[in-house]
């Protein structure tokens, strides 16, 4: 599936295979992971909550918009949810195109749109307690 939310870790090669074609000379892969520090807080893990049906339809829309907006061949957008310790994969975006420039641009645009629109929320579990991340705000959980 080119667009999905999952609790399983990503098979990056499988994602690339999904959009491989002989005319593609460029595959740009963005892989997001859980980082150990955020704004000075030491993070143990993130708990991702998702509105599954809406997240998938919003990701599908973003993919279709990217295919219209950029001269690319195809794109994969996967997002994880559940309990994810530091170092775990969180988001994967892969874009294929003839040349690298449009693939880099489309990949960056897709990641920005996912962060802006897709109904997924993270709660940080830190040494100082738990915090909901709401856009740019941090609210004690």
């Amino acid at each position, binding site marked *: 599936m080119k667009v999905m939310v999952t609790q399983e870790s990503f098979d990056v090669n499988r994602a690339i295979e999904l959009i491989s074609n002989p005319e593609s000379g460029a595959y740009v892969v963005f892989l*997001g992971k859980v980082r150990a520090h955020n704004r000075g807080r030491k993070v143990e893990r993130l708990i*991702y*909550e*998702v*509105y599954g*049906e*809406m*997240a998938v*339809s919003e990701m599908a829309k973003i993919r279709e918009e990217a295919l219209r907006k950029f001269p690319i061949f195809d794109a994969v957008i996967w*997002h994880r949810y559940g309990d994810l310790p530091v170092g775990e994969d*969180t*988001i994967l975006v892969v874009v294929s195109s003839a040349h690298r420039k449009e693939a880099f641009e489309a990949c960056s645009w897709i*990641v920005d749109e*996912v*962060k*802006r*629109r*897709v*109904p*997924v*929320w*993270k*709660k940080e579990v830190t040494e100082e307690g738990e915090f*909901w*991340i*709401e*856009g*740019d*705000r941090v*609210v004690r*959980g």
Partner: protein
Amino acid sequence: MKIRVRYFARYRSLVGKSEEELEVPDGITVGELIEFLKERHPELKNEVFAEEDDLADVNVSRNGRYVKFDEALQDGDVVAIFPPVSGG
């Protein structure tokens, strides 16, 4: 008419449940539903809608699509109320 309201993330914690079915007046708008929910759940009123620009941070979807506050709802709709997203 009957609608289903779903809550996510911090709003789910505040309300204490992830969804509920509600009997609401026919043709109620999204904005009117928010007023209805503020009365029903004082914790939302105090923690989410307490500021002057109280709708600025609240996202609402209707049947899985983002919706504006003046849109009218229909029987059987699923409305979700949630904070700004933070995926990635």
